[in-house]
């Protein structure tokens, strides 16, 4: 039996049908991502699961218990659902300290004082925020607030973790780190998670399965590689293809650097992680804005050589496509170049590595 099942979910705001008959399921411990452009109904779906928005129709069921059934007029209020939702804005209560914020879910459940203190500490330790217990939210950075929000959600041990673009308010560097951290935490806790994002890299790197949405409907459901390799619609291909992708094989791992060799013999060093073992098939993704045109003899590591095969004028900049191996790598620059050989620099930190399971 699935852990969570959503079927035929609809939500109408006046004339706007924000969610239009959505159905999907999540298995116990699964990490599911709702991916789609802004305004496609992701948050509305998430809030309907949490019980914060009353849907217009459909059915939601968790652990065999019906939360909402439009035709039966059944609606379980949010406080009785035991779903943990992390808001995009974090929504920490400004008048409470970090410790009070985290203790609140236990207090409303009537947990004994002593146990609350212990659990709050445990939860804060989980997100490495123990030393900030007495601070107020406004005294924390965005990343710290995000961790506290997560601790507050985990402290009452929800049956389901719901995350609404939790990384979108962080700056690029922090976002990358928080992503890895979040993935680790989720697999450690093995909690069923519904993650909402509009960022395909986040979706591909974190999820067990991705639900691609557009205009309130589901476009495709599948594993990251299914979605990436075999997009069901041009929309998905375009949406997911925002990044450059290079596939290759892990050649060597030395310290915290893994060397990925590409089909054409060039190599790319990336940050090592436990799943990157030599011989492993991987896909490396890098955003166009993180690809830089450099001089042939640039001292930086991770230089890729290829030929410019395509040029697009974008107003202030040009976008070029460089053929590397069997792939095209796009990058942008203000320089006006012809169809020449180009050398590209890609910093190891800007590479996201997907280690796909099994074949490929």
């Amino acid at each position, binding site marked *: 039996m699935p852990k969570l099942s959503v079927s035929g979910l609809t939500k109408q705001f006046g004339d706007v049908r924000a969610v239009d008959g959505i159905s999907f399921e999540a298995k116990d411990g699964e990490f599911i991502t709702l991916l789609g452009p802004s305004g496609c109904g992701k948050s509305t779906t998430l*809030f309907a699961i*949490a*019980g*914060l928005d*009353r849907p217009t129709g459909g059915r939601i069921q*968790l*652990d*065999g*218990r019906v939360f909402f059934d439009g035709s039966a*007029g*059944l*609606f*379980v*209020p*949010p*406080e*009785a*659902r*035991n*779903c*943990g*939702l992390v*808001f*995009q*804005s974090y*929504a920490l*209560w*400004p*008048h409470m300290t970090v410790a009070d914020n985290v203790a*609140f*879910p*236990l207090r*409303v*459940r*009537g*947990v004994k004082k002593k*146990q609350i203190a212990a*659990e709050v500490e445990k939860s804060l330790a989980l997100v490495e925020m123990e030393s900030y217990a007495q601070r107020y939210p406004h005294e924390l950075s965005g990343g710290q607030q995000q961790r506290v929000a997560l601790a*507050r*959600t*985990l*402290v*009452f*041990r*929800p*049956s389901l973790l719901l995350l609404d673009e939790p990384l979108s308010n962080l700056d690029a560097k922090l976002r990358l780190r928080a992503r890895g951290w979040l993935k680790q935490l989720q697999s450690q*806790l*093995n*909690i*069923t998670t519904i993650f909402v994002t509009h960022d395909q890299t986040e979706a591909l790197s974190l999820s067990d399965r991705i639900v691609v949405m557009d205009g309130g409907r589901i476009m495709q459901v599948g594993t990251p590689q299914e979605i990436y390799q075999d997009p069901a619609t041009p929309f998905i291909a375009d949406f997911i293809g925002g990044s450059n992708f290079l596939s290759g094989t892990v050649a060597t791992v030395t310290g915290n650097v893994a060397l990925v060799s590409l089909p054409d013999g060039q190599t790319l060093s990336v940050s090592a992680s436990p799943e990157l073992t030599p011989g492993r098939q991987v896909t490396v993704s890098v955003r166009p804005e993180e690809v830089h045109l450099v001089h042939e003899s640039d001292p930086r590591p991770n230089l890729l050589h290829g030929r410019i095969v395509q040029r697009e004028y974008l107003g202030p900049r040009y976008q070029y496509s460089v053929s590397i191996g069997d792939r095209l790598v796009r990058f942008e620059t203000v320089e006006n170049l012809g169809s020449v050989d180009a050398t590209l620099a890609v910093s190891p930190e800007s590479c996201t590595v997907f280690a796909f399971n099994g074949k490929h």
Partner: protein
Amino acid sequence: MEEDVQAVTVGTSRFFDADGFDPSAVSAERFPRTRLIQYSLALFTLFLVAAPLVPVLYQSLLSVPIYESGGTLNFDAYWRFLASPDFQTAMVNSLVLAFGSTIVGTVIGLFIAIAVARTNMPARQLVSGTMLLPLYVSQLVLSVGWFIMYGPAGYISLEMRDLFGTVPWNLYTLAGMSVVAGILAAPLTFILCIGSLRLIDASMEDAARSLGAKPPRIIWSVIIPIIRPALVYSAMLNFISGLELLSIPLIFGRPARMIFFTTYLYNSRGGSVPDYGLLGAAAAFFLLLITGLVLIQGRLLRNASRFTAIRGKASRPKTFDLGKWRYVAAGLVVAYLVFGLGLPLLGLVLRAFVEFLTPLMAPWKLLTWANFNIIFSNPIYIRSITNSILIAGLGGALATLLIALVTVVIHRSDFRWRKPLEFIALYPRAVPGMIAGLGVLWAVLWIPLLSPLHGTIWILIIAFTMRNIPTGYGAMSPVLLQIDNDLDRSARSVGADWWTTVRRVVLPIAKTGLFSTYVLMFLSFFKEYAAATFLYTRGSEVIGISMLEFWGIGEVGPAAALGVLQFVATCIFIFAARKILGVKLHA
């Protein structure tokens, strides 16, 4: 249809190791209190607002006093009332006074608002601070001050006669009263207009100026149209207040034997057996008249958003350079503040400390504590002061709590009737203070369950609360609307029900707004007297009532002394609110 399932435990998840802790099992099954609380609040508000209205309308149709059984329902009282010459005179006088005071108040208030918000007149800060004070002081107190200085035997009037042989004004006329009422109403216009004046996008003025328009023309053709909603609103409010005005008609109209609508009602309060039917018809007529005006006000403002040139945040505060004229403008504003508000207050204070006030003798030769001794030697007057403080302090707090909760239900809940509830909460704008008082009195006489309230200060608290729900709602709404929705939604998602969320998250975050609302309620309750005129009995007087009693028997000195006490207490409270609660009253 809607079936709210209350907290039931959800099967444990196997996460967080196997330490056995399962908070979802701890959660106690809760009583479905959300709807109960919301319905109770809504019904209580409905009761508060309807309690005074229903008896008035009922009595106006009833042939016998409301507390008697039997009687028939008919329109007799209305015909008697409408046909009475007293009514017709009162109606005309009231309309003229309301109209006159609206014009005077709007012109003065708008002039000062433009000078403060859009010009480089000197001392703008000081002026805008001072303009606030009259809003928190009883009109009765200021009117007494005017009487003492500018009345027919007033200090300044007599001085004028000495110097010039004649007094160019007479406050015992409709024109005189309109000017006084207008001068006292100007601060309200000022406050209501200055907000939108400050927010006008400077680029609109720039545009007009670049087309060659001169400042006066810009004021006329750019600024006035833009602040029209605020202006219409304040003019309507002034007009309604003019109709409801009791202090000036009592103080200046009575001696001139001029009758107004409010004094007509006030007078029929006396006598051994009032004509209930007539009183009911008069009150109902008054109520319907004001309701009509409030509805018109709403209609006029319905399309107000068309006019908004207001951006979310104040843009560059751009001011006209008035050149030398800025001193002229400052002179006019200072003259208003000194002659219109300062001197009457000074007169009030002087009068309180002397045996009599005359230009013929220096006041310090007549110094006396006698006026205060009269008050402090009589338990009735002392009690009226303690009652006022108690009603404002305790009643204001209760009213703030009620209004805060009602506002929360309206803005932060999925309560099915929240739109009608908002309408109910705003309706008392259409209920004049005296009618609210009369209605509550009749409700208490009519409904046996309420009779223990008769003669207690609770009946006053009820009437004052009813009257001030819209004011409190107006103060509380923006505060709640500013709080991010996610903050209460996150509380709900982690397991708090609506009521816990309100108590532990919404209201604590709105704390500053709650304090401001309390300060506003305290000051409104403290100065209210019109709603008490029908309600008080021996034991439940308030300061304003005692003042009117002294006034009625010609004892100006003690009345002035009470006015001084009220004024001083108001100032102390405003100061304390600032120091202790951190509440700053501002325009």
